[in-house]
């Protein structure tokens, strides 16, 4: 089985009175096991000609659900400072948050809700990917 790792490093010299340096690495495994995730969409890059509303980028129907350990990655690859991507969950488009240019996110996904995005302007570039398990554990 595949071995995939995801590492986050957060650093700041001045957001607190002491330097912050946090680095954590996760080995991405199927739910409840030490077997690696076995599916990957690749990283999709899309430039949206027009602003988007509730555009589905991760359809829940594609993935096994509940006892799973899927992961979703999204990045706002736009330049500048103002054009944001709104990340939403489910048919009610529940707000998770906004990704401003250069921002990325990485989160677990249980396959029960769609992941949708809005974009605030025309011509925005977004990249996204899903790492998943082929069968629920």
């Amino acid at each position: 089985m595949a071995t995939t790792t995801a590492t986050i490093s957060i650093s700041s010299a001045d957001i607190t009175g002491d330097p912050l340096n946090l680095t954590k690495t996760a080995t991405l495994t199927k739910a409840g096991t030490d077997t690696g995730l076995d599916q990957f969409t690749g990283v999709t890059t899309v430039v949206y000609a027009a602003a988007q509303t509730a555009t589905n980028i991760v359809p829940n129907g594609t993935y096994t659900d509940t006892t799973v350990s899927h992961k979703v990655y999204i990045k706002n690859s736009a330049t500048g400072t103002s054009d944001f991507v709104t990340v939403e969950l489910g048919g009610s488009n529940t707000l998770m948050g906004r990704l401003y240019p250069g921002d990325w996110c990485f989160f677990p996904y249980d396959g029960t809700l769609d992941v949708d995005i809005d974009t605030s302007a025309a011509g925005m570039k977004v990249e996204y990917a899903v790492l998943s398990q082929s069968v629920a554990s």
Partner: protein
Amino acid sequence: MATTTATFTLNSSDVTGHPFTMTQTATLTKAGGSTGLDEFTGITSRTYAAAQTDTVIVADSIYSVAASSHKVYVRNTSTGTSDYILVELEGNVIIGRLYPGDWMFIPYGGTLDVQVTTIATGVTIEYGVFSQSAAS
């Protein structure tokens, strides 16, 4: 203003037919500007003596809403393979399960609590919020 960076590296030698490595670095700024986020909760570490149900780890009332660029970090610091943390937005909107060692880093709109549910006793978690003091 503070300068905070968040770097993501994804690496696999065999999840596709060829080795894959990706690194992305974001400088965490306030919404719509180049000014750095100015608030940080610190990293909270907890060991839950009992299983939790919809325990609030990020309270929406604390954070500004609308034009904001908050970020939430959560990690399941438990050992083993089975004791997951279910992460939800208020109203039982499931984000997903963090199995031991898994982490997440998401944008946060400040409109709903972030909650966790655990299935076992002794589950350990760490979390933190990077935020802006006022909406842009």
